[in-house]
């Protein structure tokens, strides 16, 4: 029975649904690893989604769309970095402020500049010569739009940067013990600016993966809170890129399964009580919680501004 439900198309669906979370989650991982909690991800995603959508609408160029999303995201990241690193404002608050800002501004710009939903030609599905035609694997893995691949490629890349490069070492040190990093000549503020701006770029592209790849439309609050879930998934994955990805896939698979179950319920006369479908994500969340969250190496300086004695 499970194979009736957990079909190739469900897994493919889970992979697509995971895309915006993975982008946003990787970006947030960088920020949090360096000690900055950016709760404004959702707001940046919205602005990035709008920027990409509007650029594609006006120019027809997907490249411009992606660049607009990246630039917008980085600009918002810069704002967050300035407020939380330089002004040392409480990160929880500044993040919420940024979110509200992005939510309001993206909606306002959309109403002003576009108004009524217009479809854009977003990233098409990529046909990879041999792979796409593989029986099951083709549908699951090789039948997605370009940004899906980019998202999944960003996971090993992020892990590599964090663990294998000097930059990654600095990020981890700054997130664990900024005083020590500072004493060793690491510029704490600069590293945090970098990570938060990188996080912004990721969030921007996460938004674009919705507006110019997945749905190819924009509307107010397009993200419907996905940025916040991405932040939760970063905790969930204990700040490790592969774990964040695994958690995201778990989460999105449950979502995709739910869609499938609801769709097939009457069609196949499956005897699945609706409650099961509704409760599944929470049960999964709770179980994973108990397994995942103890003994985690949290960036101990998370949310703590750093200021040298004088």
């Amino acid at each position, binding site marked *: 029975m499970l194979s009736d439900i957990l079909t190739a198309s469900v897994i493919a669906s889970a992979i697509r*649904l995971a895309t915006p979370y993975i982008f946003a989650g990787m970006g947030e991982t960088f920020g949090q690893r360096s000690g900055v909690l950016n709760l404004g991800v959702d707001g940046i995603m919205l602005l990035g989604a709008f920027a990409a959508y509007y650029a594609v609408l006006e120019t027809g160029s997907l490249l411009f769309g992606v660049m607009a999303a990246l630039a917008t995201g980085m600009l918002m990241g810069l704002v967050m970095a300035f407020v939380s690193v330089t002004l040392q404002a409480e990160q929880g608050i500044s993040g919420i402020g940024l979110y509200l800002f992005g939510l309001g501004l993206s909606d306002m710009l959309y109403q002003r500049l576009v108004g*009524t939903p217009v479809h854009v030609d977003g990233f098409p599905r990529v046909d990879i010569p041999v792979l796409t035609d593989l029986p099951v694997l083709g549908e699951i893995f090789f039948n997605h739009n370009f940004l899906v691949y980019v998202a999944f490629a960003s996971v090993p890349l992020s892990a590599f940067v964090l663990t294998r490069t000097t930059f990654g070492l600095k990020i981890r040190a700054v997130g664990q013990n900024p005083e020590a990093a500072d004493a060793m000549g690491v510029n704490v503020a600069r590293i945090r600016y970098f990570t938060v701006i990188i996080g912004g770029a990721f969030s921007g592209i996460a938004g674009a993966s919705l507006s110019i790849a997945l*749905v190819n439309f924009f*509307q107010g609050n397009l993200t419907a809170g996905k940025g916040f879930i991405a932040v939760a998934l970063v905790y969930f994955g204990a700040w490790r890129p592969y774990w964040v990805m695994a958690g995201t896939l778990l989460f999105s698979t449950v979502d995709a399964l739910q869609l499938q179950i609801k769709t097939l319920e009457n069609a196949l006369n499956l005897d699945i009580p609706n409650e099961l479908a509704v409760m599944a994500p929470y049960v999964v969340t709770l179980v994973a919680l108990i397994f995942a969250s103890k003994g985690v190496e949290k960036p101990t300086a998370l949310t703590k501004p750093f200021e040298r004695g004088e």
Partner: protein
Amino acid sequence: STHTAQADDPFRVAVVMPSATNDLAFSQSMYDALLFVQEEMGEDNFEFVFQDGTFVVDDAAVALREWALEGYDLIIAHGSQYGAVVEEIAIDFPDTSFAWGTDSDTFGFDNVFAYEAASDQGGFVNGYLAAQLTESGVLGVIGPIETGDAKLYVDGFVAGAVYGDEDITVNVNYIGSFSDVALAAEAAETHVANDADVLTGSAQMVVGAVGVAIDQDEQVLWFGTQANQTSLAPELVVASQVYHWEVVLMDMIELIQDGTLGGESYSLTLENEGLTIEFNEEFEVDEELLDEVDSLIEGIIAGDIPTLMEEDSE
């Protein structure tokens, strides 16, 4: 400010709506109606204010109360979620006229109008058409939450599809949200993966599903509801059921100006032309099929064809 409308004062209406006025769906249907009425009565005689995007009910409650205090002639709460709020506020302002929908309950107050849309009727027509146009024999429906006019539309659509073809498969998916566009898109993907070649859906998040329909290599058709959704996807939209709240609004305004502040319950139907089926002119439909639709509509108006299936009306 005074409540008694002078003859030369404009008629003032205030409306709270759950989504944007250009959502090509529920809120836009009311906004278009207000513009229509304004055109009809002239800008000097009709003024309206609105607050859109107010899905949070207690924000709406605040707005409604403010407007009541300001002495608006008619205060409309456009969304079934506002009912309880209207009931509470209407007691406090017996001289102000309120209207809300979609529902039929005026709470027994004589200053409350209720309005609803028999969206199952248009849903039935759309479903019938979909059953004729499908090649795979599978239809996909994306709903928000299983209540209100969305549920009526979905149920009517299913009934109409089965009426058109007993062996048809209709997969229905309520995604549990009015706003999650990405989930609506993925629901559409799921339908397509399960062989659906005709899709429909209700509420503002369906743009995601439309986007998916557009991006398919094989043609996937779309049926709209609430507003004319042709502009969303000119190649795919066959027809839309369109709400014309102006039918209700004009009547209420007349009653209020004559001193009746409420107590009436309205329904948009095919019969009173509050509901119309608008075809996409770009999309070619057989003359024969159009004739069938006309007689279907006549049958529904005459009450010969039930637009909900037995078990649904339980």
